[in-house]
C-alpha cells in the first residue's frame, strides 16, 4: 500500500468519526492559533516600534550632560550634572572639525501647567532653536515654527504640538491666541502637524531656547555660561553616525578641557539612536520568541491530546485492525494508516489554527488600548514553521498508538468485542 492509499484510508477513518476528529484537532487549533497570534503581535509591535524610532531619525545623536554610566558603575546617571552649555552647541555648529555634522539644536525642557482661555493641561515645554524643526522634520499645520528673530528677541511666543492644540483650543484657531506657561504668558505662533510615534512632540509646547533660559529656568551656570540640558546633533547621513559621534566628542573634550582620551573623564554622554534601535530590536525579538514558546506549550498539550485520542481510537478499532490484518495488511500498513491519521489531524488542525490565529491577530490589532493600537504582522516564516511543527507533533505523538495498533495479534483482534 503506497502513501496515497494510506492518506485516502486515513481520511476515511477520520471522516467515520467526525466529532472525535474535530475535538482532537481543537487542541492543535488552539495551540497553533496561540503561537500565530502571539508571535504576530510580537513581530507587529517590534516593527511598529522600529518604524517609530526610524521616523525619529536614525541619523540623530543626542548629547546629554553627565557621564554615561556604562564606563564605570558608580558614575552619576544622565543629567546628574549640568555641564552642557549653549556655547558647546555653538562650538559644534561652527567647528570646521565636524564635517559629519549637518545640524545642531540645543534643547532644554521642563514641565508646566499650560492654560488657555478654554482649557488647561500639564505638558512638557521644550526650549530650542529653529534647527530643531529641520532635524526632526516637523511640519507646521498653521502659523510658523519659532524663528531666529524670536530667539534673538527672547520673544514670548510658542508652537503647540497637535494634541496640546486640540486640548487647549478645541473650538477655535490657536494661532494668535495667548496661553500661560505657568506664570509666563506667551502667544501661539504656530501649530505642528500630528507626528505620531512614541516620544512625539504632539504632547509638547516649543518655545525659543532663550526665552526659556531667561524666563522659566535657571539659565546660567556659576561661571556665567548658558546651560542646556541636551544638544541634538544630526549627522549628514546614517553612515556617518560614528564619525559625527567622534567629531562631537573631540570638540566637547576641547570645550571642557578634558585631556583624558579614554572617555572615563567625559562629563557628557552621546546617545546614538541607531544603537538604541538595535538593542531595542534585540529585546523585542527575544520577547517575541518567548511569547511563541509560551504558546508552544499549548501545542504540546494538543499533541498529547492527539496521542490520547489515537490510543482510544486504536482500542475502539481493534476489530477493524484484525479484519485488515486477516485480509493481508502488514504491520507497516497498519502503522502507516494510524500515523497518517494523526499527521492529517494535526495538519488540518494546524491549518485551521493558522486561520484562527490570523483572524485573532487581526481582531486584536483592531482593538485600541488607550488610543494606541497593537499592530500585528504575520511573517511567512512563522506560517511555514507552525505547519511543519503541527505535522511533526502529529507524527511524534502518533508513533506510540500506531505502533501499538500495528503489533496487535490478528486472532485476538478479530475476537475482540
Amino acid at each position: 500500500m503506497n502513501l496515497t492509499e494510506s492518506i485516502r484510508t486515513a481520511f476515511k477513518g477520520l471522516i467515520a468519526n467526525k466529532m472525535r476528529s474535530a475535538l482532537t484537532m481543537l487542541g492543535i487549533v488552539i495551540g497553533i492559533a496561540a503561537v500565530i497570534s502571539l508571535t504576530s503581535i510580537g513581530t507587529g509591535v517590534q516593527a511598529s516600534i522600529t518604524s517609530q524610532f526610524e521616523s525619529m531619525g536614525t541619523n540623530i545623536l543626542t548629547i546629554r550632560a553627565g557621564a554615561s554610566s556604562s564606563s564605570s558603575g558608580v558614575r552619576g546617571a544622565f543629567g546628574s550634572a549640568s555641564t552642557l552649555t549653549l556655547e558647546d552647541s555653538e562650538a559644534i555648529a561652527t567647528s570646521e572639525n565636524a564635517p559629519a555634522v549637518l545640524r545642531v539644536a540645543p534643547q532644554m525642557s521642563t514641565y508646566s501647567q499650560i492654560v488657555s482661555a478654554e482649557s488647561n493641561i500639564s505638558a512638557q515645554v521644550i526650549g530650542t532653536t529653529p534647527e530643531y524643526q529641520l532635524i526632526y522634520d516637523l511640519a507646521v499645520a498653521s502659523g510658523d515654527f519659532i524663528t531666529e528673530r524670536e530667539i534673538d528677541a527672547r520673544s514670548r511666543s510658542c508652537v503647540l504640538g497637535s494634541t496640546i492644540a486640540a486640548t487647549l483650543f478645541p473650538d477655535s484657531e490657536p494661532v494668535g491666541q495667548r496661553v500661560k506657561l505657568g506664570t509666563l504668558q506667551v502667544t501661539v505662533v504656530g501649530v505642528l502637524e500630528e507626528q505620531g510615534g512614541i516620544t512625539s512632540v504632539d504632547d509638547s509646547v516649543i518655545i525659543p531656547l532663550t526665552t526659556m533660559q531667561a524666563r522659566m529656568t535657571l539659565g546660567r551656570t556659576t561661571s556665567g555660561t548658558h546651560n542646556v540640558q541636551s544638544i541634538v546633533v544630526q549627522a549628514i547621513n546614517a553612515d556617518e553616525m560614528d564619525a559625527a559621534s567622534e567629531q562631537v566628542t573631540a570638540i566637547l573634550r576641547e570645550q571642557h578641557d578634558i585631556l583624558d582620551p579614554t572617555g572615563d573623564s567625559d562629563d557628557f554622554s552621546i546617545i546614538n539612536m541607531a544603537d538604541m534601535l538595535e538593542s531595542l530590536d534585540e529585546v523585542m525579538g527575544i520577547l517575541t520568541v518567548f511569547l511563541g514558546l509560551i504558546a508552544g506549550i499549548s501545542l504540546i498539550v494538543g499533541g498529547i491530546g492527539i496521542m490520547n485520542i489515537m490510543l482510544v481510537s486504536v482500542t475502539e478499532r481493534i476489530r477493524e485492525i484484525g479484519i485488515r490484518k486477516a485480509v493481508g495488511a502488514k504491520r507497516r500498513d497498519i502503522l502507516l494508516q494510524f500515523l497518517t491519521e494523526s499527521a492529517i489531524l494535526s495538519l488540518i488542525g494546524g491549518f485551521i489554527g493558522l486561520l484562527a490565529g490570523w483572524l485573532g491577530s487581526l481582531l486584536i490589532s483592531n482593538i485600541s488600548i488607550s488610543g494606541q493600537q497593537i499592530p500585528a504582522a504575520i511573517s511567512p516564516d512563522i506560517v511555514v514553521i507552525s505547519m511543519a511543527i503541527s505535522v511533526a507533533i502529529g507524527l511524534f505523538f502518533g508513533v506510540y498508538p500506531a505502533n501499538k495498533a500495528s503489533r496487535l495479534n490478528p486472532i485476538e483482534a478479530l475476537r475482540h468485542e
Partner: protein
Amino acid sequence: MEEVLLPPGAAARLWDKPRERELKNGKLIMIEMINITKTYHIGTIDVPALRGINCHIETGAIAAIVGPSGSGKSTLMNIIGCLDQPSSGQYHLDNIDIAGLSDDDLARIRNQKIGFVFQSYNLLHHADALTNVALPLLYGGVPDRNRQALQALEMVGLADRAHHKPTELSGGQQQRVAIARALVNNPSIILADEPTGSLDTHTSEEIMRIFTNLNKEKGITVIFITHEPDIARYAQKIIHIRDGMVDSDGEVII
C-alpha cells in the same frame, strides 16, 4: 484414524515421502498438516490446544472441520488460515512451507492465497460493500480495484448493493459481501469459520450454495468450520476434531 495411531515420528516420515504433494489417486494436496501442535502459555500453565494434528485436504475439495467447542477446531482454523503459527509440526499450504515464515510473509499469504469468511461477517462498518470487498486488493497493491470488487459482488448477486453500508444490509447479504471479499483476490482456499452460525436455515442454504458454486466454477478449495450437521453435509470430507486431535477424517459419500 490411521495417522493418530502412528507414533509422531513415523507419521512425519510417512508424509515426507510424497514431496510433490500428490496422492496416489493423482489428486493434488492443498493443505497438509503433520504432527501440528499448539500450546498456549497462560501465566505459568501450558494449555495444549492441538496435540498432534495430521490431516490433508485435496485441492478443489470442500472440507468441513467439526467438533465440540473447546476441541481446538478454532485454533486449527487459525493455523490453516496463517493467522497463527503452530508450536511444532509441519504445515504446507499449496506447497508452501508455512513454518518459520515471518509475520509479513504470513500477511502476504493471507492476502494472496486465503479468503476468510467469519461467523460475525467482520465487515468494516463505516465503509460501503464495494470498499469492503476491495480491501484485500488494497493491501495486495492491485490497481483497478473497484472493477474487480464489483465483479466479485456480481458473483454473489449483490452488484446492486455495492454502495450500501453493512448496517443497511441483512445478515445474509452481509455474509455474501464477506464471501465476495474472500474471493476477490482469487485465493487458493476460502476459509469459513461458522459461516452460517448467525443465519436462518433458508439463508444458510443460500450461503452454502454460493460456496458450492464457487468450488465447482472456480475450483476454489473451501474449508469451513461448523457444528451443524445440515451444513456439514455440503462437504466432501469431514474432519472431526476432539481434544486437540483428529478423531476421524473421512470422505463423505454423497
